[in-house]
């Protein structure tokens, strides 16, 4: 029996952005349902990590300087006004968590708001959301969006995978508006905490008519011990790297070690040691990042005295900048009533062509979630839920095959096929036009298989996997097509065959389409009409 609900605001995804969206909507007086694929509190890449947030005091000069410095590194694709707004919203919003998170009191008796440990942060956000009356549906992956006859978002359908018969219990939520906060797409790389980040929200939104932006900026990588998920870069600030012959690998003194390490890994095994970490920091590391030493301890490795093998884990769009294109200052997508927050949305407006890293992306999640939550609460107030009107389900591949349903495990074949194009360093970090074109042709073929033959499986897990597979193929195509359409090197997007930056390409690239993928230049910036709350941030 289907669980059928109606509410003002539906949030899909219960990580950092989804929680803040739900809280903001509830604070604005709306009734909120949050549906998470896993468990709100452990889901998403923040729960396993420990984010800093872009944190600049409300001093106009300091803020203007922070924006100026960061915008100068964004390679022409960011917008200073959007940067200024996330600094301001983050500064105002983050301290409201204080009743649920035990902030450290640092020098001067000031609570340290900006840097939080992941498991405690997400546990606090869940409690905060519940205290504001948000109804959380755990283990309830959304499978597709519902649309009104006018094309606007009307809700979503999904499955409660721990309830009911083997196929799970279906759920349907009607709402005045929907916020997609499903995170970035990590292409099933082993980035810590990213197993659920398969681009489901990207696909659902695109099926409803949403566009994407910046999908070529999907190449961020992080060092980890080989076979380990501990992609925690802070400790690796102390790492020295060696090749199989014991020669130190020159990382050029740059904190971004990705390219030299990727070249070395393509040639053979690479080893690291954290021997440079001072003993005082070693002693407190378990209190800073409690999980990072677990894999070492369990293998009997002392990372401070021994050399261990390392790898680079891809992150796809997670700490890239691509995602759903935003059409207005409330983070509405190109589909009316459908909003995107956090890593599911493009972060080009605040980060441009280079990674927003942890701090900027976290500030983005807090801010975009807050704005989207407030906006959908207003939408519900102004237009009502419209819950009685007929709606159409927007989902395609993996739900409603056009041809004969496949009998083999097509989901596995498709995900393996995507990984083969999206994870090898030589294809992603050292892109070349002809290789990208071949990848795209392969991925187009995978899409035709998905569209025509990928059917929902018999049990809840197989139903979810089919949609994940379709989403991975779709995201891989947008990413590859956009990389092909940018014949230059700019920030995270690096073309081995065109090493220079082309001033004529200093604009964003939007993309979209399912049967036919398209890419187009996008020179618009969503206007900001809301007055900045005092103290106003001056941007030069």
């Amino acid at each position, binding site marked *: 029996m289907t669980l059928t609900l109606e509410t003002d605001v539906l949030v899909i995804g219960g990580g950092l952005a989804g929680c803040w969206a739900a809280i903001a909507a509830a604070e604005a007086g709306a009734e909120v349902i949050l549906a998470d*694929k*896993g*468990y709100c*509190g*452990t*889901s*998403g890449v923040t*729960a*396993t990590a*420990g984010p*800093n947030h872009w944190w600049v005091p409300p001093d106009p000069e300091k803020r203007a300087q922070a924006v100026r410095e960061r915008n100068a590194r964004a390679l022409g694709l960011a917008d200073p006004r959007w940067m200024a707004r996330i600094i301001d919203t983050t500064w105002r919003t983050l301290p409201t968590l204080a009743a649920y998170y*035990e902030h*450290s009191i*640092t020098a001067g008796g000031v609570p*340290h708001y900006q*840097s*939080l*440990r992941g*498991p*405690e942060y997400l546990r606090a956000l869940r409690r905060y959301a519940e205290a504001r009356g948000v109804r959380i549906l*755990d*283990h309830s992956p959304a499978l597709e969006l519902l649309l009104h006859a006018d094309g606007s978002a009307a809700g979503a359908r999904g499955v409660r*995978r*721990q309830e009911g018969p083997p196929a799970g219990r279906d759920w349907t939520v009607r709402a005045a508006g929907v916020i997609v906060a499903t995170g970035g797409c990590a292409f099933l790389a*082993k980035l*810590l*905490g*990213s*197993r*659920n980040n398969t681009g489901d929200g990207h696909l659902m939104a695109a099926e409803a008519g949403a566009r994407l932006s910046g999908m070529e900026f999907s190449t961020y990588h992080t060092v980890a*011990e080989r*076979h*380990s*998920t501990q992609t925690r870069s*802070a*400790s*690796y*600030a*102390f*790492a020295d790297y060696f090749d199989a012959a014991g020669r130190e690998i020159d990382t050029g*003194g*740059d*904190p971004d070690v990705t390219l030299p390490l990727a070249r070395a890994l393509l040639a053979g095994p690479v080893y690291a040691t954290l021997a440079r*970490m*001072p003993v005082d*920091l070693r002693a*407190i590391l*378990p*209190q*800073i*990042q*409690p*999980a990072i030493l*677990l*894999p*070492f*301890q*369990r*293998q009997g490795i002392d990372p401070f005295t021994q050399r261990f093998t390392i790898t680079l884990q891809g992150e796809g769009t997670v700490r890239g900048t691509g995602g759903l294109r935003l059409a207005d200052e409330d983070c509405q997508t190109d589909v009316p009533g459908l909003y995107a927050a956090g890593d599911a949305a493009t972060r080009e407006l605040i980060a441009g062509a280079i990674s927003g890293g942890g701090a900027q992306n976290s500030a983005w999640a807090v801010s975009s979630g807050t704005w989207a939550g407030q906006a959908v609460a207003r939408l519900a107030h102004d237009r009502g839920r419209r819950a009685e009107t007929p709606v159409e389900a927007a989902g395609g591949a993996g739900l409603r095959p056009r041809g004969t349903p496949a009998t083999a495990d097509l989901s596995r074949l498709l995900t393996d096929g995507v990984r083969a194009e999206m994870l090898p360093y030589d294809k992603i970090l050292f892109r070349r036009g002809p290789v990208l074109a071949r990848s795209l042709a392969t991925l187009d073929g995978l899409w035709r298989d998905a569209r025509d033959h990928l059917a929902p499986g018999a049990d809840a*897990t197989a139903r979810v996997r089919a949609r994940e597979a379709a989403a991975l193929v779709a995201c891989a195509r947008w990413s590859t097509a956009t990389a092909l359409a940018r014949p230059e090197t700019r920030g995270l997007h690096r073309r081995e065959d065109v090493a220079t930056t082309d001033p004529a390409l200093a604009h964003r690239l939007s993309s979209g389409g399912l049967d036919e993928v398209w890419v187009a230049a996008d020179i618009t910036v969503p206007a900001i009409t809301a007055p900045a709350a005092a103290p106003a941030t001056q941007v030069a």
Partner: protein
Amino acid sequence: MIELVLADRCTDCDTCVQVCPTNVFDAQPGGPPVIARQEDCQTCFLCELYCQSDALYVAPNCDEPVAVDAEAIVASGLLGQFRRDSGWHEWAGQSPNLHWRMGELFARGRKPVAAPTP
């Protein structure tokens, strides 16, 4: 990936079933949960953090299952390490959250940048 649910420690509270973000466990009537979808485990260790009876063991290998020796692991004292270091549950107040010092790792770890060669 998750390798062990230790039946003699497990209190059958099913918290791991609930909190696992990737739905790896299945609850069983009258017994400990089973590892039903090991291939979905993302090796995040969060099930261990939430398990108050330290009945779970996640092997560090995220790429493939590995053989584990349950007796040796119990004897090693490694079970419950994540909870102890995190100061959760009965360890509250005994292991302060020093995450706010993470910035020091980046700052002190950075190698001095060599002067650019002309």
